């Protein structure tokens, strides 16, 4: 058996190299997020957001932008035979799941590097909420990547892939979004940053991550069966 670390690094490096060359997912995700912020700014006719509204605008935008990347996550494996190549190799097939989760986390981090500063510029009066927000972003990204990878691998064989991913993914990430917005809300209050129940919601996010990462790892092998 090939070591899982070698296979993980090979798949992750392949995905990132292909994305850097083709820019098929990241620019679309970033452009979507920026456009959504512009629409919110003029649609709500507000130059400043706070509390739950700010958290809702941020997370709704990041979630829908993420769906664009999740939709495309396994397209190369499906269309260029990557699934067969990986199934023929002497590797633990769950490595494909972990490598795709890692790739999606990188995409989400890159998206947030662009989208969050623009969100702050459009809607926040101070950047004080951003350092603690990083913790929420990291935990939410892990959960979104684990769930998204699982759903994307199930949907990729369907002709209705673009429809299936949001239809199945969005209900599953409702708990994640509730926890992420609830953790973000006190960071963006009008009166300044508050940490009321911040830790509790981080624990909820961590539990969600753990459940879906383990679930994905456990069932992924079966999803690859023809």
């Amino acid at each position, binding site marked *: *058996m090939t070591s899982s670390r070698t296979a993980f690094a090979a798949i992750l490096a392949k995905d990132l190299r292909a994305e850097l060359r083709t820019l098929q997912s990241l620019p679309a995700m970033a452009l979507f997020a920026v456009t959504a912020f512009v629409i919110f700014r003029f649609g709500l006719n507000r130059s400043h957001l706070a509390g739950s509204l700010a958290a809702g605008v941020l997370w709704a935008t990041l979630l829908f932008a993420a769906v664009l990347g999740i939709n495309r996550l396994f397209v190369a494996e499906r269309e*260029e035979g*990557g699934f*067969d190549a990986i199934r*023929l*190799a*002497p590797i633990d097939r769950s490595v494909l799941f972990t490598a795709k989760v890692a790739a999606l986390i990188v995409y989400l981090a890159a998206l947030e590097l662009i989208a969050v500063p623009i969100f702050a510029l459009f809607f926040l009066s101070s950047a004080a909420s951003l350092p603690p927000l990083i913790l929420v972003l990291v935990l939410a990204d892990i959960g979104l990547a684990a769930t998204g990878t699982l759903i994307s691998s199930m949907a990729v064989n369907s002709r209705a892939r673009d429809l299936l991913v949001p239809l199945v993914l969005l209900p599953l990430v409702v708990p994640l979004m509730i926890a992420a917005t609830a953790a973000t809300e006190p960071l963006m209050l009008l009166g300044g940053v508050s940490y009321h129940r911040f830790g509790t919601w981080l624990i909820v996010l961590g539990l969600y991550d753990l459940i879906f990462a383990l679930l994905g790892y456990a069932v992924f092998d079966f999803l690859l069966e023809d």
Partner: protein
Amino acid sequence: MPPDQEPAIRLVGLRRVYGERAALEDLSLETAAGSSLVVLGPNGAGKTTLLRILATLLRPTGGEASVLGCTLPGEAWKLRGKIGYLGHEPLLYRDLTGRENLRFHAKLHGITGARAEARIEELLEAVKLSHRGDERTYEFSAGMRQRLAICRCVLHEPELLLLDEPDSNLDIEGREIARTLIGPGAGHTRVVVTHDPDRFLPEADQVLRLAIDAPAVVS
């Protein structure tokens, strides 16, 4: 086949259905290690299905299948890495270069570092693609992609080659090149699916003729 030698492939009453349609029905055969089995039959007779079952890419619905001493599907994990599979798709990423594709597959098979580089250069040289190895494969012609797919197929020096129309898209020179890597006599056991009996029957040790709604014939 000597009586004490275990066959490379042993099928007993193999069956595979898709929904209600049987693609393979009650297929039995034994193929000796190091020999060439040529599989013939019309479209839809189950040739590719058979190859994908042997490659562990598809589960049989019924019957017994043993490949290189591993029972399928239970011991498929032991078999992976011993098979070189050349199917309809080249299993190459269009946005990676030829060398990057081969490096990727080498790593999946646990071949890394200088050993991988040496093997990749040896194979690219053999298929006359060394000078194009740093170009992305979407720039390759179909024949060049097939040559690279042959490199991918034999990169890890498999014991068993499963070849589905291996000459497709290859010109005369390409076929000669392919013969050196995946032809008979290179020590592999081979299963070749083809619609070109004139080309492959002379090198067959065993022939399997699959038919639609009729029993398979082994000769």
